[in-house]
């Protein structure tokens, strides 16, 4: 059935139905039956793309074809860009491109490039092109060294070549390098000698100079050019990931004589750094602060908000909290806190928000209870602020499912931040629809001071100060008897730490065998099995002791604090008493 149009006086149209034959005649008259032959593929994406790009017209049947390129264009670039959004700045192509060929000395090269031109921009890597990347050090070498290339290679002192070449095979060498990715096979012996010299030299040369003097790339660009680019990249990937051989220098922090810093020292040192770009950062933050009311509006209308982008968003969320949430019930959750769990989140909701004192069989039961409570009482409103929803402790599937279910409630509003680069992978479609996110980019460049303070970074000394202070703190709140028992446990653990059988006693302890009770009651610390059991449970609740399943399936007890801290603690206790 086709329709025919008629114009009416009041500008409105009317559709009349006419017979197929008439329509056919109509078409044939107008078209002359000629133009319809043109074949066009049907794209799912958008018709306008078909029109613009005849090269896609090759599809012969009218099937709907998905074209990635169109998709990228439409979602990535085609639209006028918002100025504030970094995700719009580059299309995905750069981020997801293959890695360039890397050499171990690249970093030092780059550093020296940057260092050499303090207030100028140096071209480091030109648009991810591997060939050009390789060329850079050579092009810029003139700046660093007075020699030309050939001179340099032949006459450069070994100290300057230090990052360069080390034979692949000399694993028994005591030099700084156990391996290198240099492709030279010649001059093995010579370089070996140079290598040993170099260690001596290195000690004399200040670090700054050393780094500058590094850049050399022995491979000629022409040789490189010949390689097939793509296969090279792919090979490169598998080369790097298949072999267990590690092509980096062997230097360790110990040799550097740079002691690991503890959290406190680190903080003190960093406090001396004067912040740069504070005006610009402030401006950024002000932009985000203007969104506070909009966020509130969107939260109240059933969306949840997730903040992403480089830099800690903790302060921003804190300001949001203090500006607009003062009169509402809200819970702040530090996802980066190592002891956080969904259980503790649910507990604070049931116990502190809903004033419920009972216990629950399982987390799911607890969730059900909360959900019912919020569904029953629509006047109840709760804001959840989660810093780092993607933290180690919360990123698990179950945790996300539960938090998602909470956030899907009409009267629970969730505002969260994510930082990890793969954070969105936590959510499948089902979870995403539970969360009902609106994404907001809030790049702040603020240091992640709080977020990283709990992290066991390689470079930060695991100082005992934190567990020690909390240990003292918790024990102060216990009865003298309990302290006595705990002291006994500490002593036992310290005395027996090298003795494999010590675990056995602890296990027996837990099960409260009579003679263990005697062991304690002899010291008049406990008078019955029951009190001992209660005491141990209390310790466990305070995380002073931990149970651990042994290979035989029996639970053992353990104080999860290193012996140094325990010794410190005992000393301190003795001083005080």
């Amino acid at each position, binding site marked *: 059935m*086709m*329709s025919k149009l008629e114009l009416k006086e009041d*500008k*409105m*149209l009317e559709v009349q139905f006419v017979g197929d034959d008439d329509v056919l005649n109509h078409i044939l008259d*107008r078209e002359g039956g000629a*133009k*319809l032959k043109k*074949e066009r*593929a*049907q794209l799912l*994406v*958008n*018709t306008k793309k078909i029109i613009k790009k005849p090269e896609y017209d090759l599809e012969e049947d*009218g099937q709907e074809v998905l074209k990635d390129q169109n998709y990228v264009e439409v979602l990535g670039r085609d639209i006028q860009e*918002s100025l504030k959004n*970094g*995700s719009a*700045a580059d299309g995905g192509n750069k*981020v997801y491109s*293959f890695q360039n060929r*890397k*050499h*171990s000395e*690249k*970093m*030092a090269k780059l*550093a020296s490039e*940057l260092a*050499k031109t303090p*207030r100028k921009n140096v071209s480091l*890597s030109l648009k991810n092109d591997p060939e050009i990347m390789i060329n850079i050090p050579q092009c810029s070498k003139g700046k660093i060294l007075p020699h030309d290339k050939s001179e340099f290679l032949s006459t450069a002192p070994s100290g300057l070549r230090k990052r360069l070449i080390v034979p692949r095979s000399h694993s028994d060498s005591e030099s700084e390098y156990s391996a290198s*990715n240099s492709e030279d096979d010649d001059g093995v012996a010579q370089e070996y000698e140079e290598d040993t010299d170099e260690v001596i030299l290195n000690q004399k040369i200040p*670090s700054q100079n050393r780094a500058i003097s590094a850049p050399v790339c022995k491979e000629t660009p022409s040789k490189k050019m010949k390689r097939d680019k793509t296969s090279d990249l792919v090979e490169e990937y598998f080369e790097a990931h298949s072999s267990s051989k590690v*092509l980096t*220098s062997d230097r360790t922090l110990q*040799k550097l004589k740079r002691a690991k810093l503890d959290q406190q020292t680190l903080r003190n*040192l960093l406090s*001396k*750094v004067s912040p740069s770009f504070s005006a*610009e950062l402030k401006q950024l933050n002000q932009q985000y602060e203007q969104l506070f009311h909009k966020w509130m509006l969107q939260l109240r209308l059933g969306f949840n908000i997730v903040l992403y*982008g*480089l830099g800690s968003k903790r302060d921003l969320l804190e300001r949001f909290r203090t500006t607009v*949430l*003062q009169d509402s*019930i809200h819970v*702040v959750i530090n996802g980066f806190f190592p*002891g*956080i769990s969904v259980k*503790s989140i649910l507990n*604070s*909701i049931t116990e502190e928000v809903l004033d419920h004192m009972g216990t629950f069989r399982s987390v799911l039961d607890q969730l059900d209870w909360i959900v019912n409570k919020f569904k029953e009482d629509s006047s109840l409103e709760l804001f959840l602020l989660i810093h780092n929803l993607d933290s180690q402790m919360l990123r698990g599937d179950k945790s996300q499912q539960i938090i998602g279910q909470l956030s899907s409630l009409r009267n629970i509003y969730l505002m969260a931040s994510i930082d*990890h680069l793969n954070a969105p992978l936590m959510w499948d479609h*089902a979870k995403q629809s539970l969360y009902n996110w609106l*994404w*907001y980019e809030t*790049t702040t460049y603020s*240091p992640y001071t709080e977020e990283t303070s709990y992290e066991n970074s*390689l470079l930060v000394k695991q100082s005992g100060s934190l567990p020690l202070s*909390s240990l003292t703190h918790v024990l102060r709140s216990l009865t003298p008897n309990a302290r006595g028992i705990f002291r006994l446990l500490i002593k036992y653990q310290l005395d027996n730490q090298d003795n494999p059988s010590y675990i056995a006693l602890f296990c027996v302890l837990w099960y409260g065998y009579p003679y263990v009770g005697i062991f304690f009651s002899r010291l008049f610390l406990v008078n019955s099995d029951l009190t001992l059991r209660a005491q141990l449970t209390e310790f466990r609740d305070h995380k002073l002791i931990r149970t651990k399943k042994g290979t035989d399936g029996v639970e053992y007890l353990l104080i999860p604090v290193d012996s140094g801290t325990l010794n410190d603690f005992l000393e301190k206790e003795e001083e005080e008493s």
Partner: protein
Amino acid sequence: MATSSVSKGCFVFKPNFKKRKISVPVEDYFNKGKNESEDSKLRFETYQLIWQQMKSETEQLQEELNKNLFDSLIEFLQKSYSGFQKNSKDWGCQIKLREIPTAALILGVNVTDHDLTFRSLTEALQNNVTPYVVSLQAKDCPDIKHFLQKLASQLTGCCVDEESKEGSTQVAQKKTHCSMDSLSSWYMNITQKTDPKMPRKKRTSSSQWQSPPVVLILKDMESFTTKVLQDFIIMSSQHLHEFPLILIFGIATSPVIIHRLLPHAVSSLLCIELFQSLSCKDHLTTVLDKLLLTTQFPFKLSEKVLQILTNIFLYHDFSIQNFIKGLQLSLLEHFYSQPLSVLCCNLPEAKRRINFLSDNQCENIRRLPSFRRYVEKQASEKQVALLTDERFLKEEIQSLLENLHAYHSNYFLVLRCLHQFTSSLPKYPLGRQIRELYCTCLEKNIWDSEEYVSALQLLRDYLLPPETQPLHEVVYFSAAHTLREHLNAAPRIALHTALNNPYYYLKNEALKSEEGCIPNVAPDICIAYKLHLECSRLINLVDWSEAFATVVTAAEKMDANFITSEERNEIIHARFIRAVSELELLGFIKPTKQKTDHVARLTWGGC
């Protein structure tokens, strides 16, 4: 109260009770914190009204679309139920008795929409077939014990609603031990108890049945573990004569999965019938038809916005729910950011509102690009009048809005005609779906396209792109980038940009650089990041730290140096530690034990 502590991670803030009572109404947030707050109350109300209408329209639509599917499902259930009844009398069909009637419901990959479908399905079944409808999800049933527990608790929950609250104590007991036996005896109990009474009010059709079947919906059949499924099917087929079970499998992929999950011995215990739900693309077409290609709702989307929404749909999730969410956000953004959206309502109401427009709003109208273009085309006296005389302006707006309205009603009519006409042409030159045609027409003059050629000159006057219409800004939402930012964000690209090109965010001349370069005064984390890109799989911390120190020291050289070099080195080292810890938090590196003082890179490529 502080929100950081070494001993806990959750902080609850409860303002005192009195304060809490006066919670801020939502509309207050609508006008706070922006410069343009003209008519914001009215705008918010209009938003609420239109959104409610759209929402109920989609719900109704969903119901209608599901109706066919549900009807055939219900028919199937009734048929198999009557089979139960017959068999119970006729003991000859022993074999038939072992077969559990099973409906395999192919729902498609848009899992997010399934919940809604199941909810209305449950309702429909409860109204038409049986009060005992239970739905289970794989995540609740890791093993057969949990499976039965959930089943039992939901079943007993089903009857608690009706049998007052007496069942609550039983629930607790049932949780500890449930088996098919206990379920059967429960069923026996419940049917005998209710038989003589027959008091049900709602269930007119089901009340005639003496023992209604138990319908079990497995929402995500694919996610269940094979063992649980097999065990349950075998067990319940044994008890089928005393526990009349009917299964409904929710399937997102293809029916083949049933045979992949269940061996022949088990699947032969099922009497499976297939049901196909409406394809989500057809669903989308209907939704578009009812919400956008109509004059019923004044609100419209620009070509790019529609494009973004359909692309998210087609490329990401096939989810109608998400599409509606995008529509809601567009609506909200439109009313939030466009002060003139107050006129985005039905025509009589809009005409009424024109009379109450403030001076500011009149100015806003004069500033609209489309209105300015319109004014430029007028005679000079009229131009002056439009720009100075408020009353004259308002009258003009009246007629312009009328025109806009007429334009739309013609537009959609003609669009449908054109679609009817072209959609049956071979190779679909203007698209198979009306939304494709709509997008093309929204974007530009359709007759300029080659495909259109000489066809239908008549339509030309009616399919003008909306931008040609004065005041189109009032009803068209065109901020496509906001939608993309908030619905389909790319956090990783944002991270990449922030690390590679700090100038993008921090507009400081010192940070200005060519593409692919980074100035050495850039934030520490950017420098550490840039350096780490030069490494392969593992990174030596000492090398990294030295390289970092080199760059940073060079950058600082110009600054006045009051502190000793040793202290300065320490500070630089501390900054390096901070940058490395932050990169670890962001997931670029992780500690490794493969080699002393090394970290492993977690990314391959530019980011």
